[in-house]
């Protein structure tokens, strides 16, 4: 099937919708217009750049170039997770935890998918490795960011309750257990909803892209099922590890809640 190529004019019309939304935000005082427009411009530039990079990468596949690209993607994802938290862990710890949990979840699962499930040869074939990693990082990033942000905010807001529970002789795990469980749910609900609605309410992006690109719907569906499972596992393990690592840092060796590990909000 021939793919209809989109012109700059087509994209411009779509961009106008975002401008319209930003105008509405300005009018009703939401205060989101600036970040909306910056994100829109950023997304356009980033996607155009990645299009060029992928063109080069696909033409001359190389392990080191794929690994280099994957590392950059991981570092940016780690930064995004860290930057989206209202109250962040101070110093390099917050960034390392964000990046570490993305590494644990997305990287290992992508590697598993490439070597065991997809079985592409060589395993780093960029047409498979980069889009798979990109989808995993993008989705796990959202889950981990949501959960991490909620954790630091809740721990700060409910610090008296956590301390009261410590004072009653509970361990740090017991004292923060309810909050940690809530945060894990927050991080995982989007992907659980996506799985539940896939094919009924929504046609996921990867599948839609493959169908538009001319693949058979059944092949597209199989890839979509694979990617949904991978994203769910990646998000779950990413959220679990981020919540555990951040929580551990909010309590010292005497199991005291140490909120000066968090940045202050002015």
């Amino acid at each position, binding site marked *: 099937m021939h793919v209809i190529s989109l012109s700059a004019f087509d994209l411009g019309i779509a961009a106008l919708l975002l401008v319209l939304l930003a105008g509405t935000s300005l009018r009703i005082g939401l205060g989101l217009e600036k970040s909306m427009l910056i994100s829109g411009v950023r997304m356009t530039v980033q996607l155009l750049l990645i299009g060029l990079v992928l063109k080069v990468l696909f033409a001359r596949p190389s392990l080191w170039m794929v690994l280099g690209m994957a590392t950059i993607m991981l570092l940016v994802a780690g930064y995004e997770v860290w930057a989206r938290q209202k109250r962040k862990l101070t110093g390099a710890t917050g960034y390392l935890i964000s990046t570490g949990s993305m590494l644990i979840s997305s990287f290992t699962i992508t590697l598993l998918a490439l070597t065991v499930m997809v079985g592409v040869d060589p395993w780093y074939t960029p047409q498979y490795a980069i889009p798979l990693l990109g989808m995993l990082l993008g989705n796990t990033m959202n889950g981990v960011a949501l959960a991490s942000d909620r954790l630091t905010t809740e721990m700060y807001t409910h610090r008296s309750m956590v301390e009261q529970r410590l004072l*009653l002789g509970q361990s740090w795990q017991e004292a923060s257990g*309810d909050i940690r469980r809530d945060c894990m749910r927050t991080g995982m609900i989007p992907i659980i909803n996506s799985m539940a609605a896939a094919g009924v309410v929504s046609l996921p992006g990867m599948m839609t892209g493959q169908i538009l690109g001319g693949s058979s719907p059944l092949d597209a569906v199989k890839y979509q099922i694979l990617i949904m499972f991978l994203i769910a596992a990646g998000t779950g393990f990413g959220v679990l590890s981020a919540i555990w690592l951040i929580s551990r840092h909010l309590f*010292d060796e*005497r199991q005291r809640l140490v909120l000066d590990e968090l940045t202050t909000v002015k």
Partner: protein
Amino acid sequence: MKEAPLPSPCPDAEYSEGLRLSSLSFLGNGPYSLDIPPGKCVGLTGLSGVGKTQLLRAVADVIVHEGDCFLDGIACSSFDPPAWRKTVAMVPAESCWWYDLVSPHFEQGVEQGEVREWLEKMGFPPDVGGWQVSRLSSGERQRLALVRSLSSGPRVLLLDEPTSALDRKMVRVVEEIIGDICRSRQTVCLWVSHDREQLARVAGRIYRVEEQALVEEMKGCM
């Protein structure tokens, strides 16, 4: 304000047991040193914001501090933290609750012997465990929080304004219960209050907390 009556002086008893604060300092306050023998209550008073609550939190080991506390000669730092906080129980001025009903906040529920007894003395009916926390008054919360901390059988009680939301009659009931526990179980008590008359009733000694020292205001039989 009426000065608390000074009890007749008696010689300091020698003791090696009980609670010892040894050069305890935190957040620019201290170092504070204090010995409280088993079964005795010490009152702490002082200006608002001077660090009375922080002192209790340091003893309960929920804030970073220097120096150490000893219970019967054993350093806080050698205790497992949850074990220390069960043994040295602090009741904060404002209690927190995280379940919908009262009962789940009590490790053993509210039906068992002593807890039931204390609750009765404090005017609660037998069905208090099923009460909604959101409907409790501040006085009810304060009394229930006290019983919740007493229920683990602590060796030391750190009370931060434990009767600030109670009427006069209930204040006396609480004072009586705490006094009984100190006497019968040899529990050590550090009682923070702005009410010097109350401290004179419940404590053998009263100290005024200042930023760098504990100044003895009233010396009783310790």
